[in-house]
């Protein structure tokens, strides 16, 4: 195989240039993935939530999860801050209300179903999928149990069944994907007596939130949490208390998680592709150099020998 130096350097240059061009083109556009059109979302209005735990009970029921030690009607559970577990995909936590000490604030925590999920972007077997309903689903049949998703999730949601020796799974809220495609409401939404959870198209949920801001400007912080956080989520929150007071991270920024690593990761195939080419190129060029040197040496030798030859012939002639 012969490869010309000029051709090789041309390839390297083109490859390098194409990565830079690709990046700047992306930065200059207004287009960004803002979720599947008409996908669903759930709006959690913390000002309406009374902390009855009906959502937790309903979640337990629709997902066939084991019964907890304390029943769902036991509200003393709210005294400690909890997080999602392998057997509880959603938890309601209680927080002090700076506006009204008599009426605490309740915040329901579960998978936020990001529009561009970090868990899906790190999963190299594609066990996670952002579906068109808005739900981020998980397929345990392909999962290898690397738990990258747990590390990647900015909301610290996915949990791992450490107690399952043979078939451990990642467990998290499914946004009731199986129910939603059947036309049913998600379990928690259906059970909420206060309608503190609203379900519908993401745009409609946003409209409801804004209408509430307009009608009751004193009641709310003028921000829909999840509209832009981490590139937007399919769970949206409105509150009368600043979100950081409810342990909701306000330092996440609006860039979707995959985009943070996209720059670095997009170059992986390029590096993987380019290194062999580069090394092979270097090898080929040096080989060619050696070959040329060899040929030149040979030529020099031959010409040197040729110069000697007449003498020999002379000798021959002489003899």
């Amino acid at each position, binding site marked *: 195989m012969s490869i010309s*130096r000029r051709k*090789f*350097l041309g390839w*390297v*240059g083109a490859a*390098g240039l194409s*990565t830079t061009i690709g990046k700047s083109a992306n930065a200059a556009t207004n287009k960004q993935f803002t979720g599947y059109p008409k996908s669903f979302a759930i709006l959690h209005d913390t000002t*309406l939530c*009374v902390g*009855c735990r*009906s959502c937790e009970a309903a979640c337990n029921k629709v997902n066939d999860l084991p019964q907890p030690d304390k029943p769902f*009607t036991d*509200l003393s559970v709210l005294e400690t801050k909890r997080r999602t577990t392998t057997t509880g995909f959603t938890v309601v936590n209680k927080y002090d209300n700076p506006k009204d000490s*008599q*009426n605490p604030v309740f915040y329901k925590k579960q998978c936020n179903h990001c529009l561009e999920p970090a868990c899906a972007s790190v999963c190299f077997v594609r066990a996670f999928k952002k579906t068109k309903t808005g739900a981020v689903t998980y397929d345990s049949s392909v999962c290898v149990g690397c738990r990258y998703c747990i590390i990647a999730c*900015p909301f610290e949601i996915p949990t791992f069944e450490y107690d399952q020796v043979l078939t451990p799974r990642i467990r998290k809220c499914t946004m009731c994907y199986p129910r939603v495609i059947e036309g049913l*409401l998600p379990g928690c939404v259906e059970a*909420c*007596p*206060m*309608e503190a959870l*609203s*379900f*519908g*198209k993401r745009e*409609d949920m946003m*409209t*409801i939130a804004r*209408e509430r801001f*307009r*009608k*009751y*400007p*004193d009641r709310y912080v003028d921000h829909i949490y999840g509209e832009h956080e981490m590139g937007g989520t399919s769970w949206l929150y409105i509150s009368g208390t600043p979100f950081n007071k409810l342990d909701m*991270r306000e*330092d*996440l*920024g609006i860039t979707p998680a995959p985009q*943070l*690593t996209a*720059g*670095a990761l997009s*170059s*992986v195939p*390029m*590096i993987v592709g*380019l*290194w062999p080419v*580069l090394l092979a*190129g*270097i090898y080929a*060029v040096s080989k060619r*150099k050696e070959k040329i040197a060899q040929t030149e040496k040979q030529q020099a030798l031959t010409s040197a020998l040729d110069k000697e030859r007449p003498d020999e012939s002379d000798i021959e002639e002489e003899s």
Partner: protein
Amino acid sequence: MVKGKSLLIGSGISVAIVILFVCFMGALDVKALSKTPDDTQPIMFRPDIITFDNMEVFGKLEKTKAIFLHDQHTDALEKINKDCTACHKTENGRMSQKFMRLKDISREELTKIYCDNCTKCHTEMIAAGEKAGPVKCDECHKERPSIQSSRVPMGFDKSLHFRHYRAQDNKCDRCHHEYDKKSQKLFYAKGKEGTCRYCHKEEPEGDATVKVISMRFASHLACIDCHQQTRAKHMDAGPLRCAGCHDAQEQLKIEKVKHVPRLKRGQPDNVIIKTGDEKGVIPSMMRVPFDHKAHEAYNDTCRVCHLASLESCATCHPLDGSKKATKNGREITLETAFHKRGHQSSCTGCHESKQQDKNCAGCHAFMNKTRQQESAACLRCHMIPLPERTGELSTSKAAKMARLMPQLWKETFGPIYKVDVPKTVVLKDLVNQYEPAEYPHRKVFDAMVKKLDGSKLAQYFHYDDTTLCRGCHHNTPAAGKPPRCANCHDKPFNEDNLFRPGIMGSFHQQCLGCHQKMGVEKYTGCISCHKERKKES
């Protein structure tokens, strides 16, 4: 040739390395997600902080502003038997508020006065073995001072005003004054008294000839001077230390007179608020009778309503918006001045703020805060005189009409609720996990009627038999039996009617919301209203 080739190969490799490096930097962005710990430094709060910023008038400051604790110095000087004169000079029997001078002359002089006098005293104290303040520049001019001000503004409420009035033997001229431009002197004008702030603003105003000192300056000059003089006579007097007036805790200790007699300054008992004038604005709305005397009692100072002067509202706020004027709120029409929401000085704004009371919140918290008043409500203020009095009222002059009005109001007060309210309502719409809830309808209604008792305002505006009903039965015609809740509230999340809650949501939001807002009974779980349904076996 060989040399050229290796050069090209070398540059190829370096291009690859650069690409790798760029990618690595991209990966570093992920770090932006990690949390940063908060920078917390303990900060002390004091009410007596004075920031030395006098030199700002001479241009940009070289150093950060020094912070001075006034009470600390007063106390320290008192201990060594020194009084205010240790730092403040006196001119014409009045103590200057400035430090060791009467006037600010130049930058250099000021620097010298502060640096020399402060350090001089501190050095002397230290030499005498006492505890003293800084002597080095940076100890006063700190980049990040660890003390912050907890000063609260001081106000002269009706009680405090009355106590001073009493103590001064009813002599208003001890404090109130006007300025005569010709003789350049202060004089007292009877019947012209107003709040200090009408003339003395946040910042000094006026030109070189007539300079109106700032409120801050004026109040310290007048109050402290008088307090000092009174104390010198061994009489009881107000505070001299900063904290005495400006500390939140100390303010609570100020004696309050419970029944303050009405302030007399020639104000009317009742006023008829005009909706037209002689200059051509045709009255379109009914005139509004206003009980001035009663409203005086509801507020702590006249300034709550009379923002810029004690003149009548129409003096500053024009009836007609087309008239151009910009001074003293003249660009705000009379209509806006009376109806502006969220403003404590307007009728609507103040009345709406009363709706936030716990007794009212059950209904009013749910009402759209940006809605327009119903036009029927306009007539509660812009009232149509009762028919049998019309003749008398329409012929009488404004002053007489105002006198007659209280009689009219009395007749409209105290609504009688003759509504047929069912005793209990069983809410069967949602029977599933729980038995139907029994709603004690009459008990709730009676409790609401009782809440009106204490409030004249509430009684006056809940005039109609069914006004109270509409707290829950909203969007319902005033007459007749209201429709069932489930007629409108059916399944939740209806795309055609996004903002209408479903039946379960509407019940729970209404009941629990009202209980929460009015502080009735705390939510203690579903079984506080519903009996659990026995499972059929």
